[in-house]
């Protein structure tokens, strides 16, 4: 049995709401259970027509095995009810909890913070869904989970609006000009707190930093003490910005065009999404106040920033700008190297 449970603390004033698939999702299992009852009824009818139904042995066997079969059918339908009932999505003020019963004895619980929401779509397909007004809600996120899908949700559009509203309010501090929260902790402290490194690892890395002048995060990655993902998470934590796994994110090519190639290369940044209210989300590898201020000066749109892996940003720049005209080219993008001085310092 595998299970990972994480429960965010709901903020006061907002009652968490639980959503489950529409009850009509049980219609087909119910029909199937009814169909399963047909064969024994036919057998019983045949036995009666052959005059064997009066035989005490056959009659008692019919009762015993018929009863057992009925218990099996009830249990089958109950199992479908379990799969239906334990697929639940809980909306709290802080985020969305996705609880899925993947298979028997295997439940998966994932959590999404509203600040990670990139896009919300509603899909109402089929006559039943249209008639009874339920649908799928697809939440595109900047997190590792990628996409959250809320299936067959009653009144899907209203729920989608609620998710949109909560995610907008979570991201609103960055709209119309970012409110940069200065780091209150050093990167090394965060990595120790996260359990990625020990104090002696940090001391050794700091010693290397004094000699080489490279950034701490890159030294630790190069030494194999932390993964690139650990570094991104730590930077996200340090700068109070959401992180995004670009390897799982489908960047809109039209949004990429909003940033010139030279700017993308200079700042190690790439636009990934433009929200409905015209906020441009930019993935950066090196969160720094000066960088944000300079980028804001180059766009008419309000910006939000997310931390992403340097390598993925480089790959995205190489991939998305390869077909675009960037005649005023900057030096070509070199493959990311762990020896480069690219990460925010302690």
């Amino acid at each position, binding site marked *: 049995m595998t299970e990972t449970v994480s429960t965010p603390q709901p903020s006061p004033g907002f009652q968490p709401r639980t959503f489950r698939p529409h009850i009509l999702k049980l219609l087909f299992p119910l029909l199937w259970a009814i169909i399963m009852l047909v064969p024994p009824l036919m057998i019983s009818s045949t036995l009666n027509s052959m005059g064997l139904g009066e035989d*005490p042995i056959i009659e008692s066997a019919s009762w015993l095995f018929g*009863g*057992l079969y009925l*218990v099996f059918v009830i249990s089958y339908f109950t199992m479908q009810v379990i799969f239906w009932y334990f697929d639940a999505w809980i909306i709290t003020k802080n985020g969305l909890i996705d609880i899925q019963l993947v298979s028997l004895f295997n439940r998966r619980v994932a959590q999404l913070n509203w600040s990670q929401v990139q896009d919300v779509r509603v899909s109402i397909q089929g006559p039943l869904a249209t008639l009874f007004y339920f649908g799928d809600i697809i939440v595109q996120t900047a997190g590792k989970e990628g996409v959250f899908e809320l299936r067959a949700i009653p009144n899907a559009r209203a729920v989608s609006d609620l998710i949109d509203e909560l995610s907008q309010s979570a991201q609103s501090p960055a709209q119309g000009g970012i409110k940069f929260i200065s780091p209150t902790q050093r990167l090394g402290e965060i990595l120790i707190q996260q359990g990625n490194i020990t104090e002696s690892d940090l001391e050794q890395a700091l010693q290397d930093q004094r000699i080489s002048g490279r950034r701490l995060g890159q030294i630790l990655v190069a030494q194999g003490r932390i993964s690139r993902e650990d570094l991104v998470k730590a930077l996200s934590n340090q700068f109070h910005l959401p992180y995004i796994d670009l390897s799982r994110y489908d960047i809109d090519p039209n949004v990429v065009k909003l940033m010139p190639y030279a700017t993308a290369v200079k700042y190690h940044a790439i636009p990934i999404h433009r929200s409905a209210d015209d906020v441009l989300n930019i993935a950066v590898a090196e969160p720094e106040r000066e960088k944000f201020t300079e980028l804001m000066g180059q766009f008419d749109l309000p910006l939000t920033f997310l931390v992403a892996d340097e390598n993925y940003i480089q790959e995205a720049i190489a991939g998305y700008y390869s077909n675009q005209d960037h005649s005023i080219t900057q030096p070509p993008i070199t493959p990311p190297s762990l020896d480069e001085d690219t990460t925010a310092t302690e």
Partner: protein
Amino acid sequence: MSPLTIILSFYIPLFLLTMVYVVVNGFHFIRFRLPGDLSWLFMSIYLLAVASVIITSISSAIVAYTV
């Protein structure tokens, strides 16, 4: 070997297998319930239905065999 012995030799293993299924379902209701949900209600209805069917079928089989 009497007909009843043959019936029971098939019935008892099948009964035990079905009971395993029932226990697995009951386990899911207990283990995966969420605070304030209706798991207990569903499980009660389910177990009541299963118990009624089993009691009815066994008692009817006994009546059919003996009367």
